[in-house]
Structure formats: C-alpha cells, structure tokens
C-alpha cells in the first residue's frame, strides 16, 4: 500500500463514521426472551421477524445470550499452548509429521476449551498451522480440510507474520468457495424442542434437515430447565449427518442473567440490559419478543417491544398459533395484532401522521431536512476534497522507486 494510503484510509473511515447518521441503516437485534417453554416459540417468531425486517430493507439479526454451560474443560489452556508451541517448533524445522502430531494434540485441548466457553482463537490458529503443514507436505486435501474447519469457525485470516503468501492464498480460496459447492446436510432430531448454536452462532429453533457447509462444527443445544448439550461433529460433502438429541432435565433453568434482565425491561422500559445486549450483539436498536404465561408451542401470546433509547418506540402483541408469518405481520402492524400506543406518544407508525410528517419518538413531527444541518455540508466538503485529492495525488507526485530483479 502506498504510504499516502494510511491517512487516506483513516479519513475515509472517519468520513464514513461521521456520515453514518445521514444514511447508514441501523442494525436491529431481535432477541427472544420467552421464559422456560416459551423460549422456542419466541425464538421461532424472532427468526421470522428478523427475516421480515430484512425483506423491508432493514439490517436485522437474531441473537440470544447462551446459558452458562457449567462444563469444566478437561484440558487446561497451558496444555493446549504447550502442544501448539511444540507444533510451531516442528513447523519451523519442516518436520511436518510432528506438526500434525502436536497440532492434533493441541486441537484436542482447544476443542475441550471451546466447549467450556473459551479457546476459540487458539483453536483457529492451530487449524491454520495444521493447514500450512499439510500444504507444504503436499497434502492438499488435508490443507483444505483444516483451513475450511478454521474458516467456518472464524473468518480470522492466518497470521501474515507466520505464514507465507501460499497459505494466505489457501485461506482466500477456502473463503471464496461458496457453501453450495462444498456442502452437506445436518439432520436434527431434538427432544424436547430447543434452540441451537453452531460454532457459536445462534441459529434458533432447529429441527429437520439443514443444509450446511461441510466441515467441523460444535453444536450447542439449549432449552431452559434442561442440561445444555454440546458436541463436536463433522458434516461431509453431499452426506447427511444425523444427530438425535434427548435433553435431560436440570434442576435450574440455566438462563443467563442478561436474558432475565431483558425480560424485566420488556415489561417496563429499556435500561442497562438493552444497552448491554446492543453492545454484546453489535446492534443499534433492539426488538424483544416476550411471551405471556401459559405459552405453548401451538398457542402463545407474544409481546413485542422495539427501541434503543430510554423508551420503547413501538409495542405490540399478538397470539401465535403456529403461523409465524401471520404473527409477525400482526406484530408489525399489518395484521390482526394490537398496537399499543399508551405511555409513549401519539403515534406508532408514519401512517398515523399527516402529510410530510413522520412518527419520531412516538410523536408526529415534520423532520428537518439534512441539507439544513451544518455537518451535512461539512461532510460533502470533506468528501469532495478527498475525491479531488485521490485524483490529484497520483498525478502530481513523482513515480515511486522500482527495482528490477533479474
């Protein structure tokens, strides 16, 4: 990268950051907070609601704070790092057989640590090392497999300090491969119904057959009041991996403190729980889906709260009877739901307001145009200056030094 590019990049980032209020879509995090048996129905609706918001052009995702697994790792971090360092030394000596042996040992420890809730970074860097060793040892299939396992766990690229461009190229090749050309299936049978995470990513309620990129996964299955179930398994290309899971009852719900706090705030007003969730899940606005007592998988009264500040900007409720799409339409105001306006303003959406008015903070008001904002024109000036500079700099500065290697 030319030396001038660093400040250029910095200013671009700053420009984008300052421009965000003008145009960038905020990310909406949809969190199910149903208690006990109500978690699965509210999680089903959360997934459908996020999909609907995305259809409408909003950026939306579903999140749920995993419970404390209560698992104690059978491996210590020190064991894992010792094995990893041994593998690194073997790698530096081009002793690829011992790299495989020690990296395999390190992976065993890291997988135990990941199950217990830590060690993700070590797991990924060990897979990078194993992939590089396989690659240099001529085992291209092994290299692809290890790099693919790393990529489906985390998109963190291999260290440029340790690995040469050949390994970086393998990483790019694996990342570029589409899920469809390297996919298998996962057939889940979970009793009673529960929510799942795959490699730490919240999927939601899952049953039946899912299409998944081939590779190694950690599945985490949870239902309040039951013992969390975790297992490493591999999905193979064009093969179906069946998992039959029978959850055991636990004496306590295992629900996280954050979920309990969000449920309390859904009944009152947004507070520390919402701010914590937005920070942890990476969102700008939150939608909570809670359920009334007596919720069953076939009939459940669901309450939605949406907001980001000190008050809920939208609130609605509906009865879910198995049709998630209809329930979501109702919650968003297009169906048979109840829009609750009490306590926070005189409107719930723009259609309740007059011409040229918008429903902002539950009140109909005429939005002031951004062209009247001082920062808008500042940004335009900065952007125009930047474009001019980007064109002028390469034209005006002297050509850089060139060395020919012969």
């Amino acid at each position, binding site marked *: 990268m030319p030396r001038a590019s660093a400040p250029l990049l910095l200013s671009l980032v700053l420009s984008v950051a300052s421009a965000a209020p003008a145009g960038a879509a905020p990310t909406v995090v949809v969190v199910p907070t149903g208690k006990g048996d109500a978690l699965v129905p509210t999680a089903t609706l959360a997934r459908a609601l996020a999909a609907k918001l995305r259809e409408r052009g909003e950026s939306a995702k579903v999140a749920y704070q995993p419970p404390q697994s209560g698992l104690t790792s059978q491996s210590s971090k020190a064991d894992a790092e010792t094995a990893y360092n041994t593998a690194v030394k073997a790698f530096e000596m081009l002793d690829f057989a011992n790299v495989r042996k020690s990296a395999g040992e390190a992976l065993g420890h890291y997988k135990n640590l990941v199950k217990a809730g830590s060690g993700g970074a070590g797991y990924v860097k060990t897979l990078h090392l194993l992939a590089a060793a396989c690659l240099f040892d001529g085992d291209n299939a092994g290299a692809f497999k290890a790099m693919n396992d790393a990529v489906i766990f985390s998109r963190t690229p291999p260290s440029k300090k340790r690995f040469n461009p050949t390994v970086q190229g393998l990483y790019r090749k694996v990342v570029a491969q589409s899920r469809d050309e390297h996919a298998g299936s996962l057939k889940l049978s979970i009793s009673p119904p529960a929510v799942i995470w795959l490699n730490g990513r919240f999927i939601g309620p899952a049953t039946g057959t899912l299409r998944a990129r081939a590779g190694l996964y950690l599945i985490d299955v949870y239902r309040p009041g039951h013992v969390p179930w975790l297992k490493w398994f591999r999905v193979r290309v064009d093969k179906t991996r069946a998992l039959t899971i029978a959850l055991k009852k636990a004496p306590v719900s295992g629900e996280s403190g954050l979920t309990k706090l969000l449920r309390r705030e859904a009944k009152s007003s947004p507070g520390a729980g919402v701010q914590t969730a937005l920070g942890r899940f990476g969102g700008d606005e939150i939608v909570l889906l809670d359920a009334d007592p007596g919720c069953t998988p076939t009939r459940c009264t669901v309450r939605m709260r949406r907001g980001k500040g000190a008050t809920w900007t939208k609130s609605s409720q509906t009865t879910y009877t198995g049709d998630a799409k209809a329930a979501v339409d109702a919650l968003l105001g297009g169906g048979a739901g109840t829009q609750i306006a009490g306590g926070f303003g005189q409107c719930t959406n723009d259609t309740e307001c007059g011409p040229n008015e918008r429903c902002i903070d539950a009140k109909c008001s005429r939005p002031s145009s951004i062209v009247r904002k001082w920062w808008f024109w500042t*940004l335009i000036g900065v952007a125009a200056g930047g474009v001019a500079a980007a064109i002028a*700099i390469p034209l005006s500065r002297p050509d850089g030094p060139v060395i020919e290697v012969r």
Partner: protein
Amino acid sequence: MRRAICIAAIAAWTLALLGCGEPDLEVRGTTARVVGETVKLELTQGSTPFSDALELIDSSGRRFDKATLRSAIETDRKVSLMLPPGAATGTGIVQVGRTDGGTYDVRLNIGRFAVALDSLGKVEALPLPGSEVGRTEVQAGPAGKQASIAPSGAQLVTLLNDDVKVFNLGRELSSGGAGLIVSNAKAVVAVDGGAIVGTDAQALVLSFKQGAGTQQDASFVVGNVSSVAADATGKRAVVLSSCDTDNDTQPDSDCVWPIALDGSNSTLGQVIAVDNAPSAKQIAIATVDNAGTERQLIVVADGDRIYGITIDGALAPQVRSIAWPGNAPNSASAVAIDVGTSSLGPLFAIADASNSRVQTVGFDGDQIKPVSTLPVPAAPSSLSYGRGARLYVAAGNKLYFADVGASNEPKLEQIGVESTQPIQSLAVQK
C-alpha cells in the same frame, strides 16, 4: 462530537495530501529463486541510489553479510548477490542500503531443489516444500550413475556412464556448457567450479572455466576408485580405492587418498590403508576447526565396519572403527553417504539398502561414534543432506525427510515430493 469527527476527517485528508512524498518500492521481475542462484537487482526508477550496504535476512531470521552473499556492486543502481547455501527455504528479504540511510527491502522466495537422477539418465529438479520455483527435468544421457551438487548449490555435476556433464542449477535446470568423456569413470563429486572424478585407475581434478570449457587440472594414480568426496570448503577431497599395498599387482586393501585441492597445483597426500580387504564402497569428508587448526574427519562405510579417520595437519592420521549397530549390511549395500552439519558437529549418514535403514555417525575427538539408526520403509537407494542436518533419503521414487540434528530420536517421514522414476542418485542443495 460530530464537529470533532469532521475536524478529524479534514485533518486526515490534509495528512494524506502532505504524507504522499515517497511512494512504496515496487519490485518487478522473478522473485521465486533458489539457493546458489545469482540475483541481480537494478534500481530502474527512483532518485535515491544504492549505498554499499547489503544484507539478506532469511525466513528463519538469520542474517547473511555481503561477503557471504558474494555481493558485487556494479554501479550505484546495480548490485548482484548469490543466495547462499544455509539460507532457510521461504521468504527472505534482501536489504539494499540507500544513500539517505534507509534501505530498499526486496522480498524473494528462496527455494531449494532435490535433484534426482534415475538409471535412464533423466535428471529431475524437485522443489522442496516452501519453494515457489517450478519442477524441471532434463534428459541428460542414456544411463545415470551419480549426481552431485557443488557446495554453493549453483552447479550440478552428473556422471552418466563415461560422460561427466555439468548443469547450472538456477530456478530452472540448464546446461552448464561443460563436460567431459572420462573412460571407465566410477564416481564423481562436484566442487565449486569443478569436479573430482574417480576411474578404475586414477583420480582426475577437473575445472569448468567460463568460456573455456572443461579443463583437467591434475590426475593421480590411486587404483580402482569406488567413491570420491570433497568438503564444504572445496579445499579438501578424499578418494576411496582398492589398492595394492604389497606390490604384487593385486589389490589387497581399502585405501584412502587425501587430496589438497588447488587447481593445477593440487597435491595427493599420503595414502591411508584402512584394512586388508578391498571391499569398502563409500567415503565422506568434513573439515572442522580444532583449536585453531584444521581437522579432517573422514568416514568410510565398509561391509562389516564403519571406519573413522581423523587428520590433524601433518600429524599421522588416526584410524578408528566401529561395528555396524545391529545387523551388518552386505558390502554391496552401503549405497550412499553424505555429511551434514549440526550443533554437535558433522553428522555422517550412510544408507544401508540390505537392512532398509540409515545409520548416522559422528566423532567424539578422534573416536567415531554411532549417533542414530533411522528405519526406512523401503530399501534406500541414495541420500543427501540439505540445509544443516536436514536429511533426505530416496527409496524407489519417494523421498523421506528427517532433521537428524533436531532430535535425539529422529524419524524419517515421507514428504509429498516424488520423482517419476526410481531414484538412482539424490543430491539436495545445502
């Protein structure tokens, strides 16, 4: 807050405008090279010329100075250097000094070849893991006997029946334009700029002069030669032959002939008879520093014993021997020998085809000692050290690798580099 962000953005743009004085270096040309290759760097664009500082940092972090790089500064915009043996395979950085005190950092991939010669005379240059150069092959002649790479890694010498041929070993294998027909040639070893060839009666010292072809600098009558070897300095060589020690015109002993190499002034040293049966097949030599004086360590692999010879200056050579650990090979099966360098000193490796193993030996003072025995999955046909004590063994068309200096119990593992034909002779760039 917004006001602050905008001010910061304007400041960043200003920095962008002011900080654009010197763009980064652009490197053009082929950056995938090999050990022993001479690389020329020319500053074709840019206002700051080269200073006289030059250094190579290999991928292990080891630094090589100008002298080791045999650097030549042609002008203040042109330099050349040789990628030295011992440089780690992988990305290295050539730091060329600038007259303003900075450096131009040129990244090169330093590769390494294992050269395989098959019995049908085909030479294949096989890139070892970490190398970015391609694989090349040459049909050198109708039948292959032995391949040997000069210590610098720049030249490959092959013995094909009676034909000695020289190849330049750059990123591609190319004819060196030199060679010689040597009747009844038995063994060859490459030294920088030349070779020593053993025949059924003599040892010949050859040199390959640029533009002048091949020249025979010296010849010595030594009897029927079975093996020749030279040390890494290119100053000392040894010849193993069957010789007549009782003047009855019949060979009766294994004899070792030291040669001090100095072109046409090369001299043959006093013969060392190691036993009373002309049966030994292989010899190797290393020169070490012994309290400020040179010491030659020589290993001779025979059918029943392994001999260790030490020569300290003008003192009488010391000959010691050990029995082969485990089963002794039959005399014909000690197929190859080479010497590598480890933190413990030179490590000699001997391939034993009849027991499918490699035996390594070293010296403790003037006493030869077994170091390790490495099983090979198939009968080894040849072996060669690469950098340091990294040992490569050929069996069939497969290559096996072990770093015998890095572990007390080294183990040979197959690497994903294969020849198309069974390997007759293997040579790896140091």
